[in-house]
């Protein structure tokens, strides 16, 4: 049957198994919105700003492992989406973004709402397409989903001019796709894996360091099995939290700029570093000259360009994390060489000494709410089982430090790009995907205002998100750096004229709470969790000048932490 381009888009999404499209209508996509009308296979979620559409699709993707899908119009629709596309790109999140474009005859004429979407998004997508002929549409969409979800995942933009959505062609769902220039690796090199296993078995002071790649590559289970079998210490990056149970004894906490003392010290002193699905980001390594000075490094990653980019490694393995881990496990089980248990025992003894500094301890005795206490309480009240999104800043670090993630896919944050405004829409995407689960958004009074309009979307779709606002009346992380490195000159980090968040929440039809005393934190959280069908905005008035510790100043090594 002949379908219009617009009908093909909707029909294709259905055939691809897409449940939700996050978007916002406009002139160039009117045909597509018309095709969405009167069908129930694909649910469109109407956000209030295109940036939120991309973050919501991103939150959906992070919490499910499935690609997020976005539909926006040309011009400002596309440019508003760019921040969310770049956010997904930096964190390798599978996403397909369909942007409307002016009719092909007008492209290049500075037409109304025209922007070169393919050009603007080129540096922050895995790939992008401009579809000039309706005959290419279905195949292009297939390629977009294939590219977005395979290899190292990432966002793909498909720009569709309005006339292409009106033109008709016979529609057949393309079952197969092949791109001669794109063949992601499907397994790791066995010789390299053998070398790595030999090195792992010889280690006297081993350390396992894993990142977002383990989550994206669905390798958490194999990682946990291997780590337990070896009895080696493990740390996760900000993006990798949840890949290994945070409450387990072998877990040393997050590493890096605001990582734990034990994780960073173990990194610095280890003799074999096993890096898996992590990319040696500058927030992790600190000064690369001083990074892991005693270690031989094994690096498993699906993206060859991640290997030896920032830190030279000794045993590189390019391959899908889960496949490589399974091969390693098999070889380790067969292996006759066993790690030196005496050396490992001494190493653990040293680590326990570092752990005994209790670097995350804080003084909670006063009558002002400590932000750390709020996150800890949220962890208690939700049994560590919630999906937790965050915005960017101090609250993000406290969320990462004090909410113990025991499962993957539950921690949603913009680690690479550091996008304020990410938290609430990402929580919406997660809540759409998991309607019966608890979804909390840990935010600050600065970040939340960057996408606060989404309270309306929460209302429209009845999303019972629990917003935990750690309100310190400062852009806290900026203020902290100004305190440390700019002699306390708080330039523009002060939030004057804050709204009354309780009234604001209520005006959107939600429940608002203001919590000012430590004793009220847990009861308020418990009450909020009982409101199963309501969005609750919890405004916690916290200690104004609390800092995130430990901290590694820029340019320092992992063993040069400021503890308090």
């Amino acid at each position: 049957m002949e379908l219009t381009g617009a009908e093909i888009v909707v029909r294709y999404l259905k055939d691809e198994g897409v449940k939700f499209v996050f978007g916002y209508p406009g002139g160039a996509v009117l045909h597509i919105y018309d095709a969405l009308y009167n069908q129930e296979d694909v649910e469109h979620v109407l956000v209030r700003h295109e940036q939120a559409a991309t973050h919501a699709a991103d939150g959906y993707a992070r919490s499910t492992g499935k690609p997020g899908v976005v539909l926006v119009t040309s011009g400002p629709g596309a440019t508003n989406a760019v921040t969310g596309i770049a956010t997904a790109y930096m964190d390798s999140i599978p996403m397909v973004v369909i942007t409307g474009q002016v009719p092909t005859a007008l492209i290049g004429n500075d037409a109304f709402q025209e922007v070169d979407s393919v050009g603007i998004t080129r540096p922050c997508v895995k790939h992008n397409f401009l579809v000039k002929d309706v005959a290419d549409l279905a195949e292009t969409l297939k390629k977009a989903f294939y590219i977005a979800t395979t290899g190292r995942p990432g966002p793909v933009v498909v720009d569709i001019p309005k006339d292409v959505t009106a033109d008709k062609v016979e529609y057949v769902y393309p079952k197969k796709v092949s791109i001669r220039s794109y063949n992601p690796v499907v397994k790791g090199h066995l010789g390299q894996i053998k070398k790595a296993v030999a090195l792992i078995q010889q280690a006297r002071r081993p350390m396992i360091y894993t990142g977002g790649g383990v989550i994206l590559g669905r390798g958490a289970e194999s990682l946990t099995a291997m780590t337990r079998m070896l009895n080696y210490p493990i740390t996760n990056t900000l993006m990798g939290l949840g890949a290994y149970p945070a409450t387990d004894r072998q877990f040393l906490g997050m590493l890096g700029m605001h990582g734990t003392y034990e994780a960073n010290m173990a990194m610095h002193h280890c003799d074999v570093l096993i890096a898996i699905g992590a990319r040696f980001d500058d927030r992790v390594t600190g000064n690369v000259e001083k990074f892991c000075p005693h270690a031989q490094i094994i690096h498993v990653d699906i993206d060859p360009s991640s290997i030896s980019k920032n830190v030279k490694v000794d045993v590189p393995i390019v391959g899908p994390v889960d496949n490589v881990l399974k091969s390693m496990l098999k070889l380790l089980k067969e292996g006759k060489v066993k790690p030196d248990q005496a050396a490992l025992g001494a190493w653990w003894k040293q680590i326990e000494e570092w752990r005994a500094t209790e670097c995350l301890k804080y003084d909670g005795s006063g009558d002002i709410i400590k932000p750390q206490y709020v996150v800890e309480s949220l962890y208690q009240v939700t049994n560590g089982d919630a999906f937790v999104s965050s915005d960017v800043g101090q609250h993000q670090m406290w969320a990462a430090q004090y909410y113990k993630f025991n499962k993957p896919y539950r921690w949603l944050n913009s680690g690479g790009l550091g996008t304020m405004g990410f938290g609430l829409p990402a929580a919406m995407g997660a809540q759409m995907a998991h309607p019966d689960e608890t979804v909390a958004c840990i935010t600050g009074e600065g970040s939340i205002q960057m996408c606060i309009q989404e309270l309306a979307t929460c209302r429209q779709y009845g999303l019972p998100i629990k917003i935990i606002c750690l309100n310190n009346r400062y852009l806290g992380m900026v203020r902290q750096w100004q305190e440390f490195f700019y002699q306390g000159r708080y330039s523009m980090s002060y939030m004057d004229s804050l709204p009354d968040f309780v009234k604001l929440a209520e005006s959107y039809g939600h429940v608002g709470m203001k919590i000012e005393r430590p004793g009220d934190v847990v009861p308020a959280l418990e009450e909020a969790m009982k409101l199963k069908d309501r969005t609750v905005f919890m405004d916690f008035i916290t200690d104004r000048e609390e800092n995130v510790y430990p901290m590694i100043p820029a340019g320092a090594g992992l063993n040069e932490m400021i503890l308090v």
Partner: protein
Amino acid sequence: MRHILSILMENEAGALSRVAGLFSARGYNIESLTVGPTEDPSLSRMTIVTRGSEEIIEQITKQLNKLIDVVKLLDLCEGRHIERELMLIKLRAVNNEAREEFKRLAEIFSGRIVDVTEELYTIELADTSERIEAFIGAVDKKAIIEAVRSGVTGISHGDKSLTL
């Protein structure tokens, strides 16, 4: 170190800007870039001359390989290769002495005089960048009206080749 990267890529709109954008976004250096069709209409071939440490060249080739439109890539400097650049140079040749001199130089450098007017000679030279620079160095600077260079293109020596 100077490297010559030879790239087979999809002959698609935007492929060139993906490569050029990658170099500017990541701060890599481009000394020259040439691109043209191949015997297969679905492919075009690009030659980039760049400079950098071994680590940087490794990153450049990995990042280029990551581009979906890049089908295959070869660093010609990894083995023996032939490289050529085309130059057209317009010289002021107002008297017999100058004309003789340029004719002689063209012969020495295996160039050809491809255009002649009463006062001008245009010489065509296809050679390595080094030899082209040597030619420019050998003519009187004041005689040069303009010189246009194509940038380097190259092919590997012997059996080695960059094909699908």
